[in-house]
């Protein structure tokens, strides 16, 4: 469980995060929504142990995120796929395992590709696959060390609508099969409602939590996007963000 209590963070005199309180249960999919530059990435970097100078308490199962990061129990995926162009798909996925000294890195990476039925692209060069698939490879790479938590920073923001829909379904599939805790930053309200169990809405600078919405759908597929419930969630979040 991720527990955040009275978290505040400033850059010099500029307050970015103000008294954030949040609990994320194991296996939950949580999206963080907020306007551009409001401190979402800072919040994610604190949860991920990359930033550790803040006030308040941030714990993952009672341990500080920095220690969890050192144990390589957190997977990251950024806005840009950040794949190494000199390595093919499978070797990009296996990179964290290789850095960890795992001798079965390629076998484990093939398993991950099988998870999303993409083993056919294993030996392709990264520039031979689409931007959406590159992002999916990046997500699989972040899963390669079998982390407890997966942190996604606007992973689909630079991807076209059609590819994005496919990736949403793949991500739901990954979440279902791996049962990881996923924290995702996004600007897309529809994306957040469609994918998440919980949506956290932040105000503008300094970022405070306005609302934490629990999203309950029996199933998650394209059909829910047409339901009244889905539209109601989207409208509610839009209203809250307009503040």
């Amino acid at each position, binding site marked *: 469980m991720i527990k955040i209590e009275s978290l505040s963070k400033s850059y010099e005199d500029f307050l970015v995060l103000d008294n954030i309180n949040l609990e994320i249960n194991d296996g939950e999919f949580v999206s963080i929504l907020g306007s551009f530059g409001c401190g979402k990435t800072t919040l994610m970097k604190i949860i*991920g142990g990359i930033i550790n100078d803040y006030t308040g308490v941030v714990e993952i199962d009672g341990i500080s995120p920095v220690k969890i990061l*050192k144990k390589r129990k957190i997977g*990251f995926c950024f806005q840009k796929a950040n794949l190494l*162009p*000199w390595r093919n798909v499978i070797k990009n996925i296996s990179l964290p395992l290789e*850095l960890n000294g795992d001798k079965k890195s390629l076998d484990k990476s093939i398993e991950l590709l099988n998870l999303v039925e993409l083993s056919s692209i294993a030996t392709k060069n990264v*520039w031979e696959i689409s931007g959406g698939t590159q992002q999916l490879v990046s997500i699989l790479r972040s899963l390669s060390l079998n982390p407890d938590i997966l942190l996604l920073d606007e992973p689909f923001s630079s991807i076209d609508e059609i590819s994005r829909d496919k990736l949403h379904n793949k991500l739901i599939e990954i979440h279902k099969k791996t049962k990881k805790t996923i924290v995702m930053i996004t600007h897309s309200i529809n994306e957040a409602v469609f994918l998440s169990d919980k949506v956290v809405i932040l105000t503008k600078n300094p970022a405070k939590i306005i609302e934490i919405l629990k999203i309950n759908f029996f199933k998650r597929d394209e059909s829910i996007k047409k339901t009244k419930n889905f539209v109601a969630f989207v409208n509610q979040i839009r209203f809250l963000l307009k503040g």
Partner: protein
Amino acid sequence: MKYIKIILGTFIFLLAWQVFILILKIPNYLFPSPVEVFNSLILNYKTISLNGLITLAEAFFGFLLANSISIIIALFISFKNRYENLVMSMAVTLKTIPIIAITPLLVLWFGSGFYSKIITAALICFFPALVNILRGTKSIDKNLIELFNIYSANTSQKIKLLIIPSIMPYLFSAFKVSSSLAIIGALVGEFITANKGIGFLIISNYYSLNIAAVFANIITISVIGVGVYNLINFFEKKIIKWNTIENY
């Protein structure tokens, strides 16, 4: 088509050269005709090729030395960038010393044989190699550095899996620039004092007014230079397939 154009262009150039010599009746001790140069090349091909290999070896080891030192310095600076200004000011100082002025000293220190030519070749191509490789280390994607830091990669993993592949395009660019400079460096060393090498042949043939042989040696060293450049180009295309970074 490309090769036909090159062959045709060369043929027209040689023909114009031959006609130019015949019309103006220039004596061969001033400007030999291509036929005379060709004859000299055939007549002395053993001597020229043997000495060509010596110059090539001097240039190669100088090239190797300069690029190895440049890579080590660039890697050092990429981890300790506070030393960049110090290293660069030393490199610029070295660059400003005319190589022709320092070569007699190199002969004094390293002897008139192989080693002084290697050092001359290394000195002349060191600076461009260093600048290119440093540019490469600075151009490494910050996001990739962050990624390696997140996965707690150690220094040797960063060098092997991130820095070296990232700077490959710049490395090859350094190799291409420094390969021709290394040959010039070896020639300069041979001009000062030597009893073998293409530089030595050029000087000795010049003193005996065998200008056709001088031309034959100049052409030989040019062919070697172009050959080495194309060889590096070939390996660059074989190794750096991801250099079409726009495709990525």
